[in-house]
């Protein structure tokens, strides 16, 4: 499948005084893609989004929107719309007027405008509220109106700046599905900014992990989670155990590893060119306990236990290293392991990622 390019970010840097917010960021977002910019606060993800919207200008590099250079284009001439973190609904206008605002500025005539406003209200299930004002709405309803207002002018790209962060947990879950659904229905390219990795994994076609102003990795949710390319990504997305190890030999994408725990095995690697010290990443849910311990098996002692509902988290000490292990509570009232108990733990070679140090 070949898809057109929606947004191309060419080598963009941004400095605020001495602070380097973005450092030579370079990637392409495809048409009809749900693309997420993910990173901790201060990683530059919002700055990047604001550059695409036209609220900031790059210090270096450029941005191309559907083949058109937009660096000289003011915000109000860019065919992109934003869902703001605070929603930024106009408090003095009704919801219908809010949605119609962009259409009026684009010069749509009245019948076309009214039809589109009705269609948008329908899309976000807010038709009965058309003549209300924003302060009469709940957070989730405001969120929907902000979406409707941004989608109404048929933007080429929709920018979403942490739109779910102001909602409570249950609503956030529901809105994720709605957003994904809206994206499929409208076929518009969504660029979604979040610091919440779960949101990113759940909704995105592709994720760009940003850290310290740089692109750390771009890939599908599964690639980002299962095949992190560096320590930053492995650490930021989900939980993981980092283990020091020694690379004995490298054969393409495989590396022969020796761990201080006394194990030796082959594991997938990327970016290593020569043998030497390296870091292993091993996700807690990929370590089995007792009867589930397969592959490389070790013996350890349970040091702590945290019951989390669906999962129980253990810390197991083995050969001087502490490993976090999570075990799904597959059976109700299942017997658990006690602190101090000696257990077998095991993991398979392919669960291990070798990262450069």
């Amino acid at each position, binding site marked *: 499948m070949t898809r057109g390019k929606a947004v191309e970010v060419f080598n963009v840097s941004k400095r605020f005084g001495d602070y380097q917010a973005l450092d030579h960021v370079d990637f392409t977002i495809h048409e009809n893609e749900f693309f997420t910019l993910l990173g901790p606060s201060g990683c530059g993800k919002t700055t990047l989004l604001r550059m695409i*919207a*036209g*609220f900031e200008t790059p210090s270096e590099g450029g941005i191309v929107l559907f083949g058109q250079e937009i660096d000289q284009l*003011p*915000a*109000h*001439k860019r065919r*992109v*719309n*934003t869902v*703001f*973190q*605070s929603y*930024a*609904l*106009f*408090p*003095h206008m009704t919801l219908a007027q809010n949605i119609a*605002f*962009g259409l009026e*500025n*684009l010069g749509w005539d009245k019948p076309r405008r009214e039809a589109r406003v009705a269609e948008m209200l329908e899309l976000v299930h807010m038709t009965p509220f058309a003549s209300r*004002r924003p*302060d009469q709405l709940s957070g989730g309803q405001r969120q929907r109106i902000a979406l409707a*207002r*941004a989608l109404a*002018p048929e933007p080429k790209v929709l920018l979403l700046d942490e739109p779910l962060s102001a909602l409570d947990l249950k609503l956030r879950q529901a809105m994720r599905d709605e957003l994904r659904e809206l994206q499929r229905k409208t076929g518009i390219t969504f660029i979604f900014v979040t610091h919440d990795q779960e949101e990113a994994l759940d909704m995105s076609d592709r994720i760009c992990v940003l850290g310290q102003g740089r692109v750390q990795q771009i890939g599908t949710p599964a690639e980002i989670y299962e095949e992190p390319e560096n320590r930053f990504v492995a650490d930021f997305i989900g939980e993981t155990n980092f283990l020091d190890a020694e690379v004995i030999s490298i054969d393409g994408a495989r590396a022969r590893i020796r761990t201080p725990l006394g194990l030796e095995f082959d594991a997938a690697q990327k970016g290593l060119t020569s043998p030497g010290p390296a870091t292993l990443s091993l996700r807690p849910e990929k370590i089995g306990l007792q009867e589930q311990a397969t592959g490389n098996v070790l013996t350890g002692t349970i040091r702590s236990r945290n019951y989390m509902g669906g999962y129980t988290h253990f810390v197991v000490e083995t050969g001087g290293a502490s490993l976090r292990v999570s075990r799904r509570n597959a059976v109700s009232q299942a017997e658990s392991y006690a602190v101090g108990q000696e257990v077998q733990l095991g993991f398979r070679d392919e669960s291990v990622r070798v990262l450069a140090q």
Partner: protein
Amino acid sequence: MRSARVWGLMPAWVLMLGTLMVPLLIVAAVSVAERGSYGGFAWDFNPLSYREILFSEDWDGNLVFDPKYLSIIGRTLLLAGATTLICMALALPVAYVIATRPPKTKALLIYLVTLPFWVSMIVRVYAWLIILGNEGFVGRFWHWIGGEGTLLFTPGAMLVGMVYSYIPLMVLPVFAAIEKLDPALLEAGADLYGSRWTTARRVILPLTWPGLAAGAVLVFVPALGTVLEPMLLGGGKQMMMGTLIQTQFGGARNWPFGAAVALVLMAMVVIVLVINARRSMSREVRV
């Protein structure tokens, strides 16, 4: 409990009664008193002062409608209204620029706006006498571009002085209103294809309206009673209500008439305040 509340509020009541209500009642009493033979007033009930505002007696003792004081009231309203509108138009962009500066610059600019209050009003109005005078730079410029006569002692000079005197009272509330605006609203305006002008007209203006209304009251009310500008910059040639009251108590020694005009002025102020209060109340209900 109840008595504690009553007694606790006593200082406020004493202050209100002693410094506000009592003098006001005295002025009201004076306005219906008899004019004294040697100035001042005599304690005789006589509401003639109010009649004097609209009518005068001719040589034969007949009452004739005389609009000379009405025209003073009209001129006062016109000048105060013009001052308010000009202050609004000038304060909006100024307040917007100040509100969008970084915090330190913002504090400095607000300080500069209030700076004129540190100098006596008389001194500041005198400064305009010099600036607008034939030797002042505005006066020189006026002659340089071919203007004739003097700029001083005209309604225009009064207006300039009044706008100058009262504009900080407009800038401050408008600034407060603009500063409260979520900057994201302005970005949303631009994001939804609104040019700067459209965003200013359709987003900034309606949302700063309460600030403009507050500023309008703050400017219009003192502008109604202004004395200095008509006296100095207007050269005392054209009476305003403020100067009229002042001359009645001073030069003309007709205290009852001065008090009557003062109460008419106060009635006008109260009307403005009531209108504004009703407006802001209905606004709160609607928004």
